[in-house]
């Protein structure tokens, strides 16, 4: 998680309670990427900023009563998740449970994977990539457009778990609590999403096509 030059926990809490305005804005900015991921994972991207903002308003009110039983960031994250869940409930009464369950299910796991033969060996030797660092991957514009395209196509729950884990850096236990999913399901969904993106990059490396 983000710890960009913030003071250590006790000092952070004291200064925030004592209305250090500059520090407050720094914290809002530093934590936004991961708080945003949490909100977006639950309510989608269109109102994620709004949810984070509302959650901060609650945090401001509750801060003097903060008891320090968990880290401040964990506490704030939980408030964001609760705010998002409330919105989600209001918004999603029309969404059928069936479609939600289908997304969460891990039964649809592909039995046959074209990469492997019937005995589970690679059909073709897995070629090495030309690109060897994450920064080089990120600098390849067309590749990133391709990755973005496939990210938006991932089933929501896969995408959310991957965002929380790999973008926001949250622990699996916390993710499971927030999204109310079992840890075995979460692991399968996380891996499926990562594996999909690995295949997207691999195909692009091999063919130059998305």
């Amino acid at each position, binding site marked *: 998680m983000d710890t960009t030059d913030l003071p250590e926990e006790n000092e952070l809490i004291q200064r925030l309670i004592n209305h250090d305005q500059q520090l407050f804005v720094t914290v809002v900015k530093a934590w936004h990427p991961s708080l*945003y991921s949490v909100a977006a994972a639950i309510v989608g991207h269109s109102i994620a900023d709004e949810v984070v903002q509302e959650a901060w308003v609650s945090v401001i009110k509750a801060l003097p009563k903060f008891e320090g039983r968990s880290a401040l960031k964990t506490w704030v994250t939980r408030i964001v998740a609760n705010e998002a869940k409330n919105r989600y409930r209001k918004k999603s009464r029309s969404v059928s449970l069936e479609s939600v369950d289908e997304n969460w299910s891990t039964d649809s796991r592909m039995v046959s994977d074209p*990469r492997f033969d019937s005995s589970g060996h690679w059909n073709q030797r*897995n070629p090495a990539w030309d690109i060897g660092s994450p920064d080089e991957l*990120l600098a390849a514009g067309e590749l990133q457009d391709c990755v973005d395209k496939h990210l938006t196509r991932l089933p929501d729950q896969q995408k959310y778990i991957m965002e929380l884990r*790999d*973008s926001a850096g949250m622990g699996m236990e916390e993710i499971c609590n927030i999204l109310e999913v079992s840890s075995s399901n979460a692991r399968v969904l996380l*891996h499926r999403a990562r*594996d999909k*993106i690995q295949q997207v990059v691999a195909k692009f490396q091999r063919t130059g096509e998305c």
Partner: protein
Amino acid sequence: MLSCKHLVEQASEYIDEEMSTGKRVQVKLHLFVCVSCRRYMKQLKLTIAMLGRKHHHQAPEEMCHHLLKEYQKAE
């Protein structure tokens, strides 16, 4: 021995270090002898690192202003 397909399916658990020691040893043995899986593991790690640096959504200025006002009000 662990098949390549199985190894690929368990690669995230291995990378996230959520694997029992027994399973870890199996994976390591397989990686030792299989270049395709070694590459896959490296590529998956690279993919995860890339995802970690992508889409870092910044706090909108408007939101920071609004929250600062709320924060000042609470004083």
